[in-house]
């Protein structure tokens, strides 16, 4: 149902090198099934890196926080 991409295609789509994607994956910053959510995550990481000058540790912290906020919002919404 959800279209998935190969590492190379994903790299081309986001402009993030394959090594970096693998590194992000090892750090738990992106999920292993490469789909449109991964595209979005990578774009978000790149924006943070470029605009806020964040290093890997900062990215990890912020990405996890943003994911958690999103999950909590969804959970809150589901309770209505």
């Amino acid at each position, binding site marked *: *149902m*959800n279209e998935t991409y190969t590492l190379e295609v994903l790299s081309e789509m986001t*402009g993030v090198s394959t090594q970096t994607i693998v590194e992000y994956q090892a750090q738990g910053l992106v999920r292993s099934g490469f789909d*449109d*959510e991964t*595209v*979005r995550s990578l*774009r*978000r990481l790149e*924006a*943070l890196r*470029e*605009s*806020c000058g964040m290093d890997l540790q900062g990215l990890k912290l912020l990405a996890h926080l*943003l994911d958690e906020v*999103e999950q909590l919002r*969804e959970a*809150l*919404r*589901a309770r*209505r």
Partner: protein
Amino acid sequence: MPAQFKDYYTSLGVSREATPDEIKKAFRKLARKYHPDTATDKKTAEAKFKEINEAYEVLGDPDKRKKYDTLGANWNDAGGFTPPPGWRQGGDGGGPAQEFHFGGTGFSDFFEQYFSGGSRYGFPQDFSEAPRGQAGRPRRGHDIEGDILVTLEEAMHGTVRPISLQTVNRKTGQAQTDTIQVRIPPGATDGRRIRVPGHGEAGHGGGQAGDLFLRVRHAAHPEFTTREADVYHELDVAPWEAVLGAEIVVPTLDGSIKLKIPAGTENAQSMRVRGKGLPKGKNGERGDLYVVIQIVLPAEISGAERSAWEQLRSASTFNPRA
């Protein structure tokens, strides 16, 4: 682009002081009345259904309701309204090179501007401003995010929805409207994002355009709520039905079924009906339907009923506090 203010309290027919529970009840009642499946006048019902869904999307969320109340205070009947200072429009992120504007998402312009998930990259807008420097270097346009209202029927079978996206180029001031066909796949779960390549912000200096990410929002259904591919239905039962057991006809996404309530069913107990949820993948697999039992008491009882309960009281040895 001033949007017309929407009075969500009037849409739901509740007062400004209504409790969350009153809002929920009012919504459910109206949703039942105007749901496209059940209403007789489909055309007006659909518009009304969208309106109450949008109102509930805002008023049913404490955070959005607070924002909405702040906005409402600055609104006057005569000439639209002025957003209070510090208000960022949901759509334009406070100063990108372009403004954008959705149509066909099932939400009004007013909702789009103030309550849609319409930030870029899905995080607070203050973060999303990349440095502008290095003129001339090709830079990819930003991604745009928005919400799209999808009915459960659409989520069940999949559909194609025309979305119009109006962009205003800040440099030229020219408005341009693109209509794109967005495919909602069968089994699109609430919160899932659909990527529409190349329909984000235009690129800079010959760079590629960004993508449009539409977040699926299931329109509230009078009978069902969803969690991932599973569907939930609250079933009201009488105390004796729960104690003695019963056979009750319950609705599902594809027709009604007869459900056996076993004797001694507890309140809030749920029963799983396998494979009656939303599609999970291309292989025909589906989520489940959970029927959640709600034991309800009669609001008023007749004399005969009263004496029956009194008889039960004297006959019963049950002590709920033992």
